[in-house]
């Protein structure tokens, strides 16, 4: 099998690149990125933190949710250059010293995930939600996670997972940024 496609000479893209200083999961990074590099591409491709996923490209699904300075944001709707000087936390930064974050524990104990693809974004949203509202009602949880789509679970067990984490955190608040 062979295909006679036209193969052009490789030329590098023109960059309007910037150097940024970002603390990602507690690690200080200095990186040069193209201005148009999305935060999600920076995390996934430059830093190989592939736990943050891309699901919809238009800011609807929330699979790419990470925390920037503690706030949940959709990393495919933000440029990497915009995080210069910021603290970014991804799913890879939830487990501390071999101990799972209560939200991670809740998701597995309550069967809050199936295919696992929306899970990192869903967990990051949950972490931010509980930081703002440590004892949410079911309705507040459902509204709080409404920027994240899950196609597998029907959300019932995600709600339970967040409730589980809320309980654990009330008993012993987790460390971390």
């Amino acid at each position, binding site marked *: 099998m062979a295909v006679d496609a036209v193969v052009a000479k490789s030329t590098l*893209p*023109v*960059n*309007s690149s*910037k150097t940024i200083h970002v603390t990602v999961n507690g690690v200080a990074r200095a990186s040069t990125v*193209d*201005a*148009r590099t*999305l935060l999600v*591409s920076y995390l996934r491709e430059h830093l190989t933190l592939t736990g943050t996923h891309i699901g919809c*490209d*238009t*800011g*609807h699904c*929330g699979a790419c*949710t990470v925390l920037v300075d503690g*706030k*949940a*944001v*959709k990393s*495919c*709707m*933000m*440029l990497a*250059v*915009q995080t*210069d000087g910021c603290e970014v936390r991804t799913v890879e930064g939830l487990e501390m010293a071999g101990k799972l974050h209560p939200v991670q524990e809740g998701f597995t104990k309550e069967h809050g995930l199936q295919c696992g693809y929306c899970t990192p974004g869903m967990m990051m*949203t949950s972490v931010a939600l509980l930081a703002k509202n440590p004892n949410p009602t079911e309705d507040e949880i459902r*509204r*709080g996670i*409404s*920027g*994240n789509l899950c196609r597998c679970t029907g959300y019932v067990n995600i709600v339970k997972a967040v409730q589980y984490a809320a309980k654990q955190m009330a008993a012993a608040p987790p460390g971390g940024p």
Partner: protein
Amino acid sequence: MYPPSFEYYAPTTVEEAIGLLQQHEGEAKILAGGQSLVAMMKLRLVQPAALIDINRIPNLSYIREDDKFLRIGATARTNDLADSELIRRRYPILADAGGEIADPIVRNRGTVGGNVSHGDPGNDLPACMMALGAEYEVRGAKGARTVPARQFYQDTFVTALGPAEMLTEIRVPKPGPGTGNAYSKMERKVGDFATAAVAVQVVVNPTGAIQTAGIGLTNVGATAIYAAAASEFLKGKSGTDADLAKTAELARDASQPGVDNRGSVDFKKDMVRVWTRRTLRRALDRAKGGK
């Protein structure tokens, strides 16, 4: 789906930002929350030569009240509205809308300034600002000017904002006694633009008569719509069911919706009617001290 290349600037003063806008002669775009702009760039619906990121301009994200106005800085986040005690207590319409825009994650980035200046008829805050009689501070090379919200919107994505101007502040007149306001959004699901949404502010005098009313409509026309005849009609009325029904019909007649997946023109017009009536009732209840 990835955006095309552009030059990126992160000015630290408004003057610097305006200078960059001038320098790029209409080819640059202001990047505030980016929740619409970045998506449009990824879809390659817009391809600005430069982005001017105003998020690093200090003191531009305030929400505060002085003796005349509620002042909202351009980069205040839409979630800040719903989270603000001041807003919840004194401007519940903005807390209503602040809890309905897009979804909670988008609201962490999306800005009040972006929402009101983008010119998308689906954005929720323009109708609120029309109802509230708000004005926008717009700054350009020649200094600052103010534009009333009711005169700001010209066509879809076309506003009174000049190519080298930037919206810097939203000013909402402070509510006097007897003021009640509310926003109702009918949406197919969280994250959707409104099928129809209605913003209402009423001021009721001590005798129970409606002194002034402002009614704004979202996503039922080329721009947000100020329902002037409906607002005018309510003046001096006591707010009976019949008053509200008539006002709702006038608001319906002011709407000019198009057909899309959300429904037909007739349906959307009828929804303007229904939600105007319901939202008026909520606003009147609030004017009387209700939630």
